[in-house]
């Protein structure tokens, strides 16, 4: 079973609904026994970086997740704040991130000629896929995804980036490193395009 890490933030109902639609069972849980039995993990999230980290800590999930993801190599998909929590740190807060990928989360900063762009980046956007990866396999040419975020990640190692998205400039919108994958957008809110991506995660990411 796919387990959606329930640490008290985020819209878990929609993720569960979309997995169900593509034929997979996904259940939210923060129970260590359920997490340990998970075949795959989803790290969701909305809201602020520090709030996310402290909620993971309050529930005693940080060490457990480190063990499952880094030692047992359980496939994990982080999205939106969940992706940012996988980085080392964020400009948004003081807390250290999970540090699973060599990256930092930074605020959108635009040159003077793009200063009219609103933050958060809220709406639909496309992916510029730079390297093939099972997570983004078989996407339609017109595939678009729903984004809502004020911060984005910057990878130290560009080879971790699967796709970039342009909002004022290119930022990393899909990343992968071994069993760890992440997306800045909300696949669960992105129609059939998000469905394909979650299906890919369930079927092809290992």
């Amino acid at each position: 079973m796919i387990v959606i890490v329930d640490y008290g933030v985020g819209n878990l109902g929609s993720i569960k609904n979309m997995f169900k639609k593509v034929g997979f069972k996904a259940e939210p849980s923060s129970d260590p026994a359920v997490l340990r039995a998970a075949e795959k993990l989803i790290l969701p999230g909305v809201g602020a970086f520090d709030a996310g980290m402290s909620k993971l800590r309050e529930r005693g999930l940080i060490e457990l997740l480190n063990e499952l993801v880094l030692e047992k190599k359980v496939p994990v998909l982080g999205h939106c704040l969940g992706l940012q929590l996988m980085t080392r740190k964020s400009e948004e807060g003081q807390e250290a991130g999970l540090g699973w990928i060599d990256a930092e989360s930074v605020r959108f900063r635009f040159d003077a000629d793009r200063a009219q762009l609103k933050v958060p980046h809220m709406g639909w956007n496309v992916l510029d896929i730079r390297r093939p990866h099972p997570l983004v396999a078989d996407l339609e040419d017109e595939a678009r995804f729903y984004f809502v975020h004020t911060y984005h990640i910057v990878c130290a190692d560009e080879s971790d980036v699967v796709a970039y998205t342009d909002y004022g400039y290119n930022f990393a919108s899909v990343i992968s490193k071994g069993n760890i994958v992440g997306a800045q957008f909300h696949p669960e809110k992105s129609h059939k395009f998000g469905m394909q991506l979650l299906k890919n995660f369930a079927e092809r990411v290992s």
Partner: protein
Amino acid sequence: MIRPRVIPCLLLKNEGLVKTVKFKDPKYLGDPINIVRIFNDKEVDELIFLDITATVENRPPNFEILGKITSECFMPLGYGGGIRTLEDVRKLLAIGVEKIVLNTSAVENPSLIRAAADYAGSQAVVISMDVKKTMFGKYEVYTRGGRKATGLDPVKFAVEMEKQGAGELFLNSIDRDGTMQGYDLELVRRVADSVTVPVVACGGAGNIQHLAEAIQAGASAAAAGSMFVFQGPLRGVLISYPAQQELKRAIP
């Protein structure tokens, strides 16, 4: 971003969808779940659902019907109507609602805005402002389904709402609602110029050109009811949504 969002705004009354004119004369459109399914198939950018009688009937959101709607809805969904407590907010998010739309509560219990934003992030908190022109030509914010005048000026109210933690403003013109004559662009301009959060314009859209005008006036997104649910001069019920190419062309 590929283009500004275009958002069908659907009104719920007694478990059916309706469309009003100037917040009056609700006309029955059909079963909400069927209509959401059609909008879902048309891959709309986002949906906003407003229960227009929850507050006046003094009842909470209809979580059961919303649960059915969200299980068919694979796009961002905003919901407003009868939200009074953080518990309501939690329940809505848990069943898959993306954005919490506050209107009466934003005026009568503004501490709920901060509480909701702390819980779910500002991006999930939308303040809906129903605005009407007074006899003297001044704009005024209304609550309780457009029934109660608050004496508040929309620009000052918008600035205050942003300060309280609102992540987005849903600006609805009562005078233009259901008229399909175009948005109140002066109102859109005034509010959009006064805040940094996205403003969604609503009320009056009759065609795709109107949507583009709202964006030019400073709105970040354009919402509409009648134009997506009616067809022809007799206002026959027909669910529609422009094709992606058409939207890209009209609203770059």
